[in-house]
Every structure is written in structure tokens, then in C-alpha cells.
């Protein structure tokens, strides 16, 4: 009950912040529309929807990390956190209370991207669409974990720089959405392969095209990153919250 109440409050705080909401939901859609418009005016396939849509979904999820980190860092810097810490809420109430609404928002964001892509002409079976959503679950966890870590360690101004600029750019450039990483090759491709973004996009592309056998080789690195970062996030969140309340005079 306490966790649901906290999750409900967090949902309202995020949904009612219109600037965050416009960026989180609107920006990926704008990019999808823009690139599809470019595609319509060039004779070669540079941004075909079946390849572009999973990339936009992965890119859009980086805004969830921004949502999460902004909310947590603002809570930490306000006196509300003192009220929360003196209540009977437990560590798991906090973690699930932050995570649950972010997971639902992530699913909503993916749904919006798929609906817009469908309107623009994407044709894929319902099963393939569902498989895409499933393959994006580790990416959802990954971004929520990044949000928890950044929100716990950074203040709200720093969060804007790290999650709002750095993470969204990393997610965009290293995902292979805007250009084929094989074409760049070399060190850039090697670095991109270390990060989970291009693997998440390739797994999504495999799911959407019905090539299910190709999903898992790509999904393992994403699951690995997501699991490791989630464990780190929980540990840091628990320790930092305790030290924050204990250390202030």
C-alpha cells in the first residue's frame, strides 16, 4: 500500500511536469517524423521504418533515465525526503515506488512510438510488435537503473547535463540508429559495441522483423548491463539515502 501510494505520487509529479513530458514523449516522436520525412524524399533506404522504429524506441528510453534522475535528485534536495524518511516506508518501498511508474511510462512511450510508426506506414504483425516490446524490457531496466544512479549521486542541475545531454547523445550516436556502425568501423564501432545501445537496437530490429533467432545474441549484453547497473543502483541508492539523512546537521 505504501509503495503504491508513493508510486502514484511519483507518477503525478512526472506527468504534471509538462516540459519533461513533452521532451520524453514528444522528442522521440518528432525525430521519428523528421527522419521519415527525409526518407520519403530520398531514393535509397536510409531510414526505413522497420529499422528506424526500434532505434527511436531505444533512444526515447534515455529520457526515462532523465525523468527518474530529475525526480530523485529533486526529492533528495527538498525537505519532503525528511518526511519520507521519518515515515514507516522501507527501502523496497522507495525503490519500487520510483521504478514502477517509470516502467509504466516506458511502456507508454514505446506504445506511442509504435502507434506513430504504424500511422507512418510501419507494417509488422502484432506478435512481432509484442516481441519488440519484450526485447526492450532490459533497456527499460537499464535506463531506470541509470536514472536511479544519477538521481542518487547528482544534484538536479548535474542530472540535466549527464542524463539530458550525455546519455541521450550516447544513446543516439552509439546505437546505430542514425547510421550503420559497420560503415564507420574502427575504434568507433568497437566502442559502440561495448555499450548496450546498439545491441538493444539490433535485438529490437530482429524482433520486429520476425527474425527471433537473432534476438538473443544481441540481447545478452543489454541484460548484462541492465542487471549490473540495477544492482549498483540499489546499493548506491540505499547507502546514499542513509548517509544523506544521517549526515545533515
Amino acid at each position: 500500500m505504501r509503495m503504491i501510494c508513493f508510486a502514484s505520487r511519483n507518477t503525478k509529479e512526472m506527468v504534471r511536469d509538462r516540459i519533461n513530458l513533452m521532451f520524453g514523449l514528444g522528442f522521440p516522436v518528432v525525430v521519428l517524423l523528421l527522419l521519415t520525412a527525409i526518407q520519403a524524399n530520398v531514393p535509397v533506404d536510409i531510414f526505413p521504418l522497420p529499422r528506424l522504429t526500434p532505434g527511436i524506441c531505444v533512444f526515447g528510453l534515455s529520457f526515462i533515465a532523465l525523468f527518474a534522475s530529475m525526480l530523485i535528485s529533486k526529492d533528495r534536495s527538498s525537505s519532503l525526503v525528511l518526511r519520507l524518511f521519518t515515515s514507516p516506508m522501507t527501502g523496497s518501498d522507495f525503490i519500487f515506488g520510483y521504478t514502477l511508474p517509470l516502467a509504466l511510462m516506458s511502456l507508454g512511450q514505446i506504445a506511442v512510438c509504435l502507434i506513430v510508426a504504424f500511422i507512418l506506414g510501419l507494417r509488422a504483425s502484432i506478435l512481432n510488435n509484442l516481441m519488440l516490446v519484450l526485447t526492450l524490457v532490459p533497456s527499460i531496466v537499464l535506463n531506470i537503473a541509470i536514472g536511479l544512479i544519477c538521481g542518487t549521486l547528482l544534484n538536479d542541475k548535474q542530472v540535466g547535463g549527464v542524463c539530458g545531454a550525455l546519455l541521450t547523445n550516447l544513446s543516439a550516436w552509439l546505437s546505430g540508429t542514425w547510421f550503420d556502425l559497420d560503415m564507420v568501423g574502427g575504434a568507433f564501432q568497437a566502442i559502440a559495441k561495448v555499450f548496450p545501445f546498439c545491441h538493444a537496437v539490433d535485438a529490437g530490429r530482429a524482433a520486429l522483423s520476425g527474425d527471433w533467432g537473432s534476438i538473443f545474441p544481441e540481447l545478452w549484453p543489454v541484460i548484462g548491463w541492465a542487471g549490473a547497473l540495477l544492482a549498483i543502483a540499489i546499493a548506491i541508492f540505499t547507502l546514499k539515502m542513509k548517509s544523506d539523512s544521517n549526515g545533515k546537521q
Partner: protein
Amino acid sequence: MDAIEIKELSKDFGDKKAVDSLSLNIQQDTLFALLGVNGAGKTTTIKMLSCLSRPSGGDALVMGHSIIHDTQAVKALINVSPQETAIAPMLSTRENLEFSAGIYGYKSAESAKMAQDMIDQLNLSEIASKRARTLSGGWQRRLSIAMALITEPEVLFLDEPTIGLDVIARRELWHIIENLKKKMTIILTTHYLEEALAIADRIGIMAHGRLMAEGTADSLRAKAGTDDFEEAFIRIAEEEVK
């Protein structure tokens, strides 16, 4: 019965002793004011008693439960209104009240009823549907205190509840706090002498992290040998320095 039994409670921040071997008993249903200048250790004491900050030494029992070994039981019995307004800015007044009840485990229907009761009791109806961030400082403080009251705690901690408020808003809050007397144990920190005099049953004077004296206003005046409470406060607070 004692609502709070404090035994040699201490808190160190590096070399600095913020609270130094504080011992004090506070009877149930008393309004106890911890009076002291800034940095006296009042807020640190409240933070330890509300399980927000772990003591460096000593212990305290809140309604018989240790603040070190039985924190969940203590947290279920208390509520706190922090020094700065502690509200969720994007929620309405009503939603803030329901949220405060909800995080103490009350079900949705119960929380809604309790919120309405609190709105009626504290005359919050005109701001009930307004977002908290749009409220004036006085209304925000009143809401913050209402969020602490809604769970009907056995022990209520009010940390500098009227700091920064104008005279009228301060008087209104005094009236609200006075109406709570005898319904729950209230520990209030303040550096306003007139506030402690106006509403407290007993007053503890803190300075340099230590409790210098404790008693009724009259007994503190008598201890200091003066009829002027401000003079009595200064004499008691500066006792250690001399």
C-alpha cells in the same frame, strides 16, 4: 507515563559535538518546547528522536520503543513537520494529505476521509484543489503541518514550525498547535522565546548541544533569578560559556 525517555543522547559531526549527553523525560500529552539559539542542537535532537539520524551515543525510547533498535515501531507512532516545508509541489493540497496518510499504510478510502477531516479542521478548503507549489509560504507551512497531523501520531515533532512566517500566520499556527494539546505529545523546537512562552507546557533550554535547564516558564525564571523570561533564557544559555 513518559512518552519520551532520552538517555545520554549524543551526536558528533567530526570533532564537533552537536548534541552532548542529553538526558530528558517528556510526559505523554505534553507540549514540550526545545528552546535555543541557532546551532544549539535542537534540530539534531529532533532528527535523532525521529530516527532520521543515528545517535553517536546513548539511546532514547519513544513510547517505549528504542530509536536505535526499533526504528520501524517508532516511525509508525510519530510524525514530523520539518523546518522547511515538506510538500510534494505538483500535488494538490488534498492529494498531499492523502499521500501523507498513504505512506503510513492507510488505504485509499481511509486516506480520502482523513484528508477531508484535516481540510475541515485546519480550514484548508479554499486551497484543497490547488497545487502545493502555487500556495503562499504561510499556506505551504500550514499544509506541511497538516501532513504531519493527518496520521494522528502519538508523538508529533514540529521543527521551527513558524520560522519565516508573518505575525498573523504565526498566531494562526499557534492556535492550531494549541488545539492539539492534550491530544498527543508535541515536541516543538523554536528560537522564538514568545512562542515557547505562549504555547508550551514545559520548556527545555539548549545551548552548545547541551540541555542547560528544563521546566515550566515560571520555574526557569526562578532558577535564573529574574522575572524577565528573555533575561532568564540568556542567563541559563550562557551559563556554560561563563
